[in-house]
C-alpha cells in the first residue's frame, strides 16, 4: 500500500514538474569531472574495480538497491518491495515491471539471476564477488564447481527469492554499482565490446567515450522513473589534475567539481561559490598503520604515545584547511555505528612522554613511514608529523612511493608504518571484518592486527538477533580497535562538491562523494549549456 502511495506521489511530482515549466528544470547539458587518476578502464561494472569507472557507470546502470544519500542507507531501486523472512535469511523481491534496458527489452528476474551468476564466475574476476558471496551457493560458483547460484530462485518474471548464508542486511552489498543488473544479450559473445559500449537500465545511456578525454551520456527516455532524468546530456571530463579542475570550474567549464584542500578556503571566501557547496564526512578513515612486527610498535604504549603526541586537529586545520573531520576512532561520523561517546586520543605531550618512558623508549627510535604523493593522506602529512614526533624523540622518515609499490609493500608487510585512507563503510560490520586476526595481510589487514576479543565481538555482531544488538557489538569492536591503537587515527575525509549556481540536486553521498546519481539533478536557464 505504502509503495503504491510512493509511486503515485512520484507520478504526481513528475507531472507537476513537467507542467510547472519544463524549461525551468529539464533539458541542458551537465559537465562533471572524473577526477580519480587518468582514463577510465572499463564501463563493464562487473569487471572494473575503479571508483573512476563507477562514477560514470552509476548513471548508466542500476542495481537491485541504490544508496540513498539523504537517509545514508541503501534503499530498493529495481524492486518495489521486499519481504524478509523471520530468520532474516530469505529475501523475496517484487521487481519493478517497467524497467527497460537501453536496448528496449524489459528487465525480469532472469536478468538479476544471470547478472549475479556472471559476477560469481571465476573467469569474470569481479571485485563484486565479495558482495554476493553471502548468497547461498555463491561459493560453489566462485570456486568453479557449478555455474548457477543455488540461493537465487525465480518465482515468476517479476518475483525473485534470495536465500542468504548469514542474516545480514544484503542491501549494503547489492546497492553497489559493481553489482549492476545487465542484459545478457549485450554481453554474451561480445564482452570486450560491452566494456567500451555498455548497455544498462539506468537513467542515462552511453553515447561516446573519447579515450583519455571524456565520456558522454544522454538521457534514456525509457527510464523507469517517469519524467526522469531531467538533464538531456551528461558529460564526464577526465581531469586528474586538481589545479586544472579548479580553473575549469571557476571559468564555468565544469558544472560541479570535487574540492581539494587547497581550494576549500578560497571557495569558502568566494561569495559566488560559498553557498553552492555540499559536504559530507565520507566513509574513509585516514590513518597510519603500525606494523606489529616492527619491535617498538609491538608495545601498545608506544602506539598510544604516538597518538597522544600528534596534534591532529592542528594538522587538519592548517594543512588540510579543515577539509577533514578529526577521527575519534576507526568508524566515521557518518557510519551507523559511530560512537558519540568516543573522544579520540587527546593531544597530550606529557602523557605521550610518560608512555614512551614506561615502554623503555625515552630516548626514542627511528622509523620509516611509506606514503604516496597524495595531498591529504600522503607524504605531506608524514612531513608534518616530523616536529611532533621529534618531541618524544621519535624520528619519522617519510618514504614516498607510487601506489602500486606501496600496495605491494603493505600486502607483504615490508614496512615499519604506512599512511593510507581505508574504507570504513557503509556496512560497519563488513568494514571491521578487515581487521580480524584471520584476515591475512594480503587481504587488507596490513598491520597484522590480532585480538581475540575483537574477533569475538565481531562474531557476536554477525549472529546477533536484533539490529540493535548487532550495533552494540559492532560499537564494542570499534572501541577495542581504538584502545589497541594499531593505527594513528587521523581523520575522516570531508568530501566537498562545489557546483555552479544554476545546478540543483547534488547530494552528500557518504560512501563516495563522486558517486553522484544524476536522476534528480536539474540545471536552470542561467546555465551556459542550456
Amino acid at each position, binding site marked *: 500500500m505504502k509503495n503504491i502511495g510512493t509511486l503515485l506521489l512520484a507520478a504526481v511530482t513528475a507531472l507537476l514538474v513537467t507542467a510547472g515549466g519544463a524549461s525551468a528544470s529539464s533539458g541542458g547539458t551537465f559537465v562533471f569531472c572524473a577526477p580519480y587518476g587518468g582514463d577510465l578502464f572499463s564501463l563493464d561494472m562487473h569487471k572494473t574495480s575503479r571508483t573512476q569507472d563507477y562514477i560514470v557507470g552509476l548513471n548508466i546502470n542500476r542495481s537491485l538497491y541504490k544508496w540513498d544519500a539523504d537517509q545514508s542507507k541503501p534503499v530498493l531501486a529495481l524492486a518495489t518491495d521486499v519481504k524478509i523472512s523471520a530468520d532474516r535469511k530469505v529475501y523475496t523481491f517484487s521487481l519493478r515491471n517497467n524497467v527497460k534496458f537501453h536496448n528496449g527489452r524489459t528487465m525480469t528476474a532472469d536478468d538479476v539471476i544471470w547478472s549475479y551468476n556472471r559476477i560469481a564466475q571465476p573467469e569474470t574476476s569481479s571485485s563484486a564477488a565479495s558482495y554476493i558471496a553471502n548468497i547461498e551457493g555463491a561459493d560453489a560458483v566462485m570456486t568453479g564447481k557449478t555455474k548457477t547460484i543455488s540461493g537465487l530462485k525465480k518465482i515468476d518474471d517479476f518475483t525473485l527469492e534470495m536465500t542468504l548464508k548469514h542474516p545480514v542486511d544484503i542491501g549494503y552489498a547489492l546497492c553497489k554499482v559493481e553489482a549492476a543488473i545487465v542484459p545478457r544479450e549485450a554481453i554474451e559473445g561480445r564482452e570486450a565490446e560491452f566494456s567500451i559500449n555498455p548497455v544498462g537500465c539506468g537513467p542515462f545511456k552511453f553515447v561516446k567515450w573519447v579515450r583519455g578525454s571524456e565520456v558522454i551520456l544522454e538521457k534514456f527516455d525509457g527510464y523507469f522513473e517517469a519524467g526522469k532524468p531531467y538533464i538531456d546530456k551528461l558529460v564526464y571530463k577526465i581531469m586528474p589534475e586538481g589545479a586544472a579542475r579548479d580553473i575549469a570550474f571557476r571559468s564555468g567549464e565544469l558544472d560541479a567539481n570535487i574540492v581539494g584542500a587547497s581550494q576549500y578556503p578560497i571557495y569558502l571566501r568566494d561569495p559566488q561559490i560559498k553557498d553552492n557547496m555540499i559536504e559530507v564526512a565520507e566513509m574513509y578513515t585516514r590513518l597510519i598503520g603500525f606494523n606489529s612486527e616492527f619491535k617498538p610498535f609491538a608495545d601498545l604504549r608506544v602506539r598510544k604515545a604516538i597518538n597522544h603526541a600528534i596534534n591532529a586537529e592542528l594538522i587538519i586545520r592548517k594543512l588540510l584547511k579543515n577539509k577533514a573531520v578529526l577521527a575519534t576512532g576507526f568508524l566515521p561520523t557518518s557510519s551507523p555505528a559511530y560512537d558519540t561517546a568516543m573522544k579520540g586520543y587527546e593531544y597530550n605531550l606529557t602523557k605521550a612522554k610518560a608512555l614512551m618512558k614506561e615502554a623503555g623508549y625515552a630516548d626514542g627510535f627511528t622509523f620509516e613511514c611509506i606514503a604516496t604523493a597524495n595531498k591529504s593522506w600522503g607524504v605531506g602529512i608524514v612531513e608534518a608529523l616530523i616536529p611532533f614526533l621529534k618531541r618524544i624523540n621519535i624520528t619519522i622518515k617519510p618514504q614516498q612511493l607510487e*601506489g602500486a*609499490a606501496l600496495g605491494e609493500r603493505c600486502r607483504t608487510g615490508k614496512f615499519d608504518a604506512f599512511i593510507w585512507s581505508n574504507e570504513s563503510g557503509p556496512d560497519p560490520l563488513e568494514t571491521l571484518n578487515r581487521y580480524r586476526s584471520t584476515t591475512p595481510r594480503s587481504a587488507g589487514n596490513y598491520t597484522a592486527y590480532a585480538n581475540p576479543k575483537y574477533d569475538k565481538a565481531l562474531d557476536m555482531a554477525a549472529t546477533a538477533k536484533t539490529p540493535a544488538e548487532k550495533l552494540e557489538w559492532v560499537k564494542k569492536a570499534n572501541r577495542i580497535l581504538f584502545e589497541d591503537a594499531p593505527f594513528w587515527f587521523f581523520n575522516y575525509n570531508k568530501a566537498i562538491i562545489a557546483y555552479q549556481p544554476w545546478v540543483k540536486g547534488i547530494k552528500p553521498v557518504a560512501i563516495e562523494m563522486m558517486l553522484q546519481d544524476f536522476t534528480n539533478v536539474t540545471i536552470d536557464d542561467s546555465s551556459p549549456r542550456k
Partner: protein
Amino acid sequence: MRAYAFRRILQFIPTILIISVIMFVLLNLLPGNAALMAGDQRKAPDPRVVEQLKKEWGIDKPIHTRYFIYLKGLVQGDLGTSFLRREPVNKLVGERIWPTLRLSFAALFISVAIGIPLGFISALKRGSLIDTASMVAAVSGVSLPQFWLGLLMMYLFSVVLGWLPSSGYGNGNFVNLIMPAFTLGIGYTALLARATRAAVLEVLHKDYIRTARAKGLSEIMVNWRHVMRNTMVLVLTTAGLQFGALIGQTVIVEKLFSWPGLGSLLVDSIFQRDIPVTQGCILVMILVFLIVNLVVDLLYSVVDPRIEY
C-alpha cells in the same frame, strides 16, 4: 635515395628489437603489479581476485617466457592486450596517437613559425636591441620549468582573461590546442631561434656570400637564396634531434592539460603497471621519432641538392 630510405627502414628492426628487450626487462622489474592497481586501493584487496588476474595476464610466468610471447606478437604487429583495460594495445595506442601527433606538430609549427624568423632577424640585425632582446627571450624559454609555465598560462588565459579553455581535448577544437602546443613548443622555439641565428651568422661570413655580394646581388637576394638554403640544413638537423625531446616532453604537457595522447597514456599505464600499454606507447613513440628522423634526412637532399645518398 629510395634505396637509402629502404636501408634505413631495415635498420629500424634491430633498434626496435634491442629497445624492446631493454624496456621489457626494465618495466617487468617494477615493484608492484597491475593486479594491485586494478581496484580502489582504499578497499580491502581480495587476494583471490589478485591471483586470478595475475594468472589471466600471464604475469605469474617467468620473464623470458613472457618476453618470447610478447616478441611473437610483436613480429605480427600485435602489441599485446592491456591488463587493466582488457583491450588490444594496438587499438588503445591507435586512438591516442593522433592527439599526440597533432600536439607535437602544432608545437613544431609554432616553433618554426616563430623561432626561425626570430633567429633570422637577430642575425641580420646582429648586436641590435632586437637581437639582444630575442636572444634573452630565447635563453629564458629553454630555462623555464614547463609545467610551471603551463600553469601560469592557464591562469592568465583561462581564469583572468577567459580566452581559452583551461584544459582537455575539447573534441579536437582548435582553441584547446593553443595552450598545450605553446607550452610544449616554447623551449623548442627558443632552441630554433638560437640555432637559426648561429647558422645564419656562420653562412653570412662564408666566402661565397661575400663573393655573391661583390657580384652586386641585392642584400635581399643574398639573404634569401644562399642563407636560407644553408640555414635550413642546420635547422633540420636540430629539428630531427630535438623531436625526440619534444615527444618526451609530451608526457608532462599532456598530463597537465589532460590531453588524451600517448604521453598521458604512458604515464598512467606506468603508474598502473599496465606493462603491455607502457611498452606499446614507448615503442610507438620511438617509431615516430625514427620516422621523423628519416624524413629529416631525406629532406636534406631536397633542401640542399648538393647532398646525395
